[in-house]
């Protein structure tokens, strides 16, 4: 049994505009329920109910998770390229000793903008965006739980990112590093508005991250397809769940830190001022309590990508599925116990530091479990060596190397040499690019047919992979050696006599190759969108539910919500189990809430309808932050517009109430 059950039957018209409004039908007392196949009256009604208005207004008002998810991904990718260009300028500067190309002030802004953009504006949002798109589809439901909140989150994110980059364009970008240590970023030494702009960005991107995390966690807990018990849940959903829960516990820390720093800067509080009883290290504790889990927000979804790609391209379910689940959960917990390893060079007690070495080593074990399970899956499977799998192989090589250098820097004595040197720059890029960006590109190739209905070019994909792999290693491997040769981080230039010149030049050449590979990717995307091979519902022969509907999926995802009877719903079904759900309204946006452990149907849920208020709310919140930055009274008066926007967002209209009452069944 495969995806055919859900595919469009030959000759049937694709869902299009229906002549009769289902809402009118409802008011006449006729009820149109879902549960039929494609081409039925139900399918037409669903299409009418779920589609967005055309044009700009429809685009602004949408709360279709697929459109919003892609919005996140595309925006994040644009900023990835922008931050990458900044890195190219940095590499150009460092290619030669005493290079006069870039001065210290600009360089400090460059690496701050590069790090801040990559970590806050690209890496976490792109992973969340992919999850926003994929999670409801993989879970077998129609939308996320709080679609208006996720819609709002996007605008907060975009406005935040723009505020940072416009600041940069106006010579007011952050310049204290992506980690903005005080006192350098404090009121006395962080002159101008640069760090204020940075603090503002943190508030906005972290608010976005938290909103999306709450939404995704709720979908995964409560809206999975009937029969998709936790044991049958795909590994990508587990990865998204662990990530979302981690985000909920960790992001408040950096938001608190940024706001305390902002209070020090604006209201003369003394959190970080040692001469008035403050403590400089509190910043580092709060930042890294968030900062270490943060790299796992980026890494764990990528592990989810890998766990989705490998079974498909090894033509078998994941070996050790339960072990991989436990490893993901263990990693999520352990990630909170490592943060001090970013502070080994401070004057914290030595015994405490050793504890964090032990914890840092422990977290390697669940990662090792996953790696061996993946290799076992490939070993016992039948391989389809296409571009997504190539990227996973690249991930193996680079991530394992980066993880091993992580073991090295996890040791306190060695870290005292490697910390804040180019050795760490090498390590972090190996784990972040290897551990997250390579799987991300693999995921792009893998799910591009689902997003767009077209296959990505395979040949160009292989070229891109090869160039990226080679360029990456040429750029970053020499940095290990540079670090051991005494080169510190965040220096805008160095003297020729240090001997750091030749390897820096090699690294710059590698960076150029990376840039070419990214260009190839963009070309591939554009060409594939225009004239790529048309994709069927399931071009890779995969097993998870997102492949059980059209490519791209219609606005309502599934014409009938699937019922699941095994871990790989499209690969294995039980003979006499139900296959789909019927009875949800096709005239209003209805979905199904199920129980947490066993996913038994529980409650019929009415999704909120599209509205402009999330956009307005985001704009008013950003307005509040700016007003507060300009004058203290802005903190209070600036709350009035958001209050109005949020109330309007929530306020149930007569039409909505009438619809609810028509549908209502009491519990």
């Amino acid at each position, binding site marked *: 049994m495969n995806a055919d059950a859900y595919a469009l039957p030959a000759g049937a018209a694709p869902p299009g505009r229906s002549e009769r409004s289902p809402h009118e039908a409802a008011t006449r007392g006729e009820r149109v329920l879902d549960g039929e196949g494609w081409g039925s009256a139900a399918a037409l009604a669903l299409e009418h109910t779920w589609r967005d208005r055309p044009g700009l207004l429809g685009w602004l008002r949408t709360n279709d998770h697929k459109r919003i998810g892609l919005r996140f991904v595309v925006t994040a990718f644009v900023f990835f390229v922008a931050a990458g260009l900044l890195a190219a300028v940095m590499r150009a500067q460092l290619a030669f000793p005493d290079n006069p190309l870039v001065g210290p002030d600009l360089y400090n802004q460059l690496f701050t903008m590069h790090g801040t953009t990559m970590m806050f504006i690209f890496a976490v949002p792109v992973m969340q965006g992919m999850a926003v798109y994929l999670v409801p589809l993989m879970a077998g439901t129609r939308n996320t739980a709080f679609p208006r909140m996720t819609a709002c989150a996007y605008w907060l994110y975009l406005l935040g990112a723009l505020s940072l980059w416009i600041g940069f364009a106006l010579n007011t970008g952050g310049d204290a590093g992506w980690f903005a240590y005080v006192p350098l970023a404090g009121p006395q030494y962080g002159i101008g508005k640069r760090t204020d702009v940075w603090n503002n960005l943190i508030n906005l991107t972290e608010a976005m991250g938290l909103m999306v995390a709450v939404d995704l966690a709720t979908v995964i807990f409560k809206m999975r397809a009937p029969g998709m018990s936790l044991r049958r849940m795909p590994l990508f959903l587990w990865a998204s769940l662990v990530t979302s829960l981690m985000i909920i516990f960790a992001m408040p820390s950096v938001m608190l830190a940024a706001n305390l720093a902002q209070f020090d800067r604006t209201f003369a509080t003394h959190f970080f001022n040692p001469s008035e009883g403050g403590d400089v290290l509190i910043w580092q504790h709060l930042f890294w309590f968030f900062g270490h889990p943060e790299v796992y927000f980026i890494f764990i979804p990528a592990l989810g990508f890998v766990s989705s790609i490998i079974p498909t391209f090894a033509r078998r379910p994941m070996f050790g599925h339960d072990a991989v689940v436990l490893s993901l959960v263990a990693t999520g917990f352990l990630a909170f116990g490592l943060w001090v390893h970013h502070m080994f060079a401070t004057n914290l007690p030595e015994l405490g530091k050793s504890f964090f070495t032990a914890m840092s080593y422990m977290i390697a074990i669940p990662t090792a479990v996953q790696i061996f399970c993946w290799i076992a899956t490939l070993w016992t499977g039948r391989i389809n060596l296409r571009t997504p799998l190539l990227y996973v192989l690249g991930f193996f090589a680079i991530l394992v190397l980066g993880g091993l250098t992580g073991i090295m820097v996890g040791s306190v004595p060695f870290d005292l040499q490697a910390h804040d040197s180019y050795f760490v720059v090498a390590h972090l890029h190996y784990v972040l690019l290897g551990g997250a960006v390579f799987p991300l590109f693999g995921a792009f190739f893998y799910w591009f047919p689902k997003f767009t209905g077209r296959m990505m070019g395979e040949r160009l994909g292989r070229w891109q992979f090869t160039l990226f792999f080679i360029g990456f290693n040429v750029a970053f491997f020499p940095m290990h050696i540079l670090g051991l040769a005494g080169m510190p981080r965040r*220096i805008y230039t160095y003297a020729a006599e240090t001997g750091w010149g030749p390897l820096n030049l090699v690294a710059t050449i590698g960076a150029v190759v990376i840039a070419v590979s990214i260009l190839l990717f963009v070309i591939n995307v554009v060409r594939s969108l225009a004239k790529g091979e048309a994709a069927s519902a399931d071009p890779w022969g995969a097993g998870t539910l997102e492949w059980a509907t059209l490519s791209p999926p219609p606005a309502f995802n599934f014409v009938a919500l699937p019922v699941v009877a095994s871990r790989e719903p499209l690969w294995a079904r039980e003979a006499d189990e139900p296959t789909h759900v019927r009875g949800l309204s096709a005239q209003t946006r209805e979905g199904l809430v199920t129980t947490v452990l066993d996913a038994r149907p529980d409650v019929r849920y009415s999704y909120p309808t599209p509205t402009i208020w999330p956009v307005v709310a985001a704009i008013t919140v950003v307005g509040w932050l700016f007003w507060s930055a300009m004058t203290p009274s802005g903190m209070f008066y600036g709350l009035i517009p958001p209050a109005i926007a949020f109330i309007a967002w929530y306020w149930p209209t007569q039409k909505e109430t009438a619809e609810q009452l028509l549908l209502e069944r009491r519990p």
Partner: protein
Amino acid sequence: MIEALHDVQVPAGVQAQAIAHLWQWLLAICTLVFVAVMVALAIALKRAPRAGADAAPDVSSLWRSEPKVARVVWIAVGVSTLLLLVLLGASVFTDRALAQMPLADGLHIELTAYDWWWDARYDDAEPSRIFSTANELHVPVGRPVVVSLAGADVIHSFWVPSLHGKKDLIPGRPTTIAFRADRPGVYRGQCAEFCGYQHAHMAIFVVAEAPDDYERWAARQREPAPEPVTGAQRRGRDVFLGRSCAMCHAVNGTTAQARRAPDLTHVASRMTLAAGTLVNTTSQRAAWILDPQRFKPGAHMPPESFAPDELTALNAYLEILK
């Protein structure tokens, strides 16, 4: 060009030696693991048959366990955990060794890091033997040096790779680091915590010399500045004291006692200027004084306009401050 050593893998002191030893263990075992994992992956790819997207997947593992494969995975996890424990042991062992290194009869230096230079005060039980210098430390070979670290403005980090790992100088959190140079030589260090504009130009040199040579240097440093002899030198001292130099720089034996900038009492004895940015020659010194912003933009030393003969005189005076 200053020939200096700054390599983690070329230790010149007992602490750096211990860390380098640990590094070798880490490198060996991690390389072994990396190769093993890559070989396993390569074999897996090589031996698995190929299949396309339309090949029916093998779902038997959904209801049947795979004990043979599980055993291999368990063994791999077990071996990895064991190796991790070995490395953890090596790390803790090195940690403790570093903490237990003898500090008896140590030389005490108080190092304070400023935006973008290092102030070093050689401490002594006998107050008359205390002296200050900047950006260049001389230490006797074979004797422990205990450096107390204080951050004056933002966080800096003291890092001399061939002697020891680094330690941060954090305002409000004084701490110490101890090292011992076992070979004579010049060792280069650099600030390793981003500290603003000229973080890139905040080097420090540690010159390890035989104990007698060190004592000679220290004795010299304790003396006040030599008196100017020639007319030019005298005029130079007047320029120094009369212009803004004395507002920040101290020269013992004169009325200049400000401590906002490096102590210049024996500036001519140093190899470099501006925390390793320039070699300390007459012409470089003149160029620096005339326009510090040209070499170290953002440094707190303002450019000054001197008449050419003023500058020559000033330089002649500084030349004698050995």
